[in-house]
């Protein structure tokens, strides 16, 4: 068992970053907290800690894999409905690089999409609304919402390969 004082120190140092990663991957604050806590629980039960210089990498990798595990435990339909990745390639190792790509895609959308494309894009991917709800909120025909959002995705797709 890892000493609770040591665990507390690690928790204070790494919790925020781990929670942020889990929140990004799971889209759910409560699930994210559970995930990070599970990683620490296992660390608490372990007799052997990773070396100090590998600790951050170990903890972040453990969080990422715990997230992948949670996603994999869902049915395929649920993974798709919640817009989770349905494949996990080796790209997932390059977390920091991937995080930069996520930021770049979001920033590109924010700076290059014009209205009403940007509002629709935000409502779909930031607010997680269904297209019908977006159409209601913006008082638009749903076919128009489909058209604008498809155009936005195709436009960003030309700039990024993810």
């Amino acid at each position, binding site marked *: 068992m890892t000493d609770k004082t040591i665990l507390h120190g690690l928790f204070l140092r790494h919790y925020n970053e781990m929670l*942020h990663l889990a929140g990004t991957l799971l889209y759910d604050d409560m699930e994210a907290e559970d995930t990070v806590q599970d990683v620490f629980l296992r660390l608490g039960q372990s007799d052997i800690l990773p070396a100090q210089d590998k600790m951050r990498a170990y903890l972040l990798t453990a969080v990422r894999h715990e997230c992948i595990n949670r996603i994999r435990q869902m049915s*395929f339909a649920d993974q798709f409905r919640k817009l989770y990745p349905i494949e996990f390639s*080796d790209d*997932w190792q390059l977390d920091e690089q991937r995080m930069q790509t996520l930021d770049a895609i*979001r920033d590109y959308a924010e700076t290059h999409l014009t209205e009403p494309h940007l509002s629709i894009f935000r409502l779909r991917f930031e607010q997680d609304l*269904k*297209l019908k709800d977006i159409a209601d909120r913006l008082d638009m025909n749903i076919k128009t919402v489909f058209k604008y*959002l498809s155009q936005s*995705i195709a436009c960003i797709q030309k700039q990024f390969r993810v």
Partner: protein
Amino acid sequence: MKTSEENIKRLLEMLDNPSAYSEQEISDIINRDDETREAYRLMVAAKQGYRRKNTSEEADVEAAWQRLSNRLDVRADKPSSSGILYKIAASFIVVLMLSGIALAAYHTISSRKTAEEIADSLAIANEKLIRISKDGEFFLVTWTRGTWVVNAFGDSFREDALVRHSPSLRPNGVKIKIDGTEHDIHELLDKPASIAKKVELDMSTRTINLVTKPVQIPADVKGNINPDLTILLTGTVPKGAYQPVTIWKSKGIKESYDWHDYIYTSWTGQWENIRIHLKEAVNRKDHHVRINVCKGTPQKHIDRIKSIMKECDVTNYEIVQQ
């Protein structure tokens, strides 16, 4: 361009009404071509990108630590250490022997064996089926050696650990069923862990069904005991791995994080150092570790695993070239 937008529209339509499509239809659309696959990935990245921006980077760490501390306590409180119980049981026997009670026939080995058996029985008897943290936010489900465990990954085996705990669960997030009937966990606090004869874990529906009636473990499952003790050295990254691993547990139950140290137990969702399993194994009288070595595995990997065996005092192991 038009085709691309049409595929995206189809994807969007499916995302809005996934229940109208079969899994095969969804998979067919996503994998129709590279462009559609890319479009799906981009939508995932867009959602993750916004989540990344909106997920707070400054949570209340001390409050979170308190919640974790409660969860740590629920595990630490329980009297499950067979080591301690072994010592209690062993002392008990010593006292009996000193008292001259009819134990004269016991020789050292058999008395030690009996102490172990008593310790095991005590450890099992002390385990409750359900344990709740002080703040009531988390609970554990516990089962014991010999229980038939089936999970959603298709793994089916006889539990070999003396006592096994589930990951911590939230009461409002998981359904607990006893013989198919859902129960409030508070109704089950007095039940011993040993009532579970079969554990059916389905985390996709977040349901754990505990079968308490006697079960007949199929012959082909009985052989699946001790799944921790077969290690596969792959030498290269196995197909489908999402990490570069070269230690791979048979049947896909375990995957390693780092070829020489960490393994991942998908059915428990636990990250562990491989040494933990080996040290557990070496405590068992009948321990035996099998290391399957795939063709092409570099000698340095074999040497490395041998050094870990030595470090963990595992003497009874075999290396099998595949």
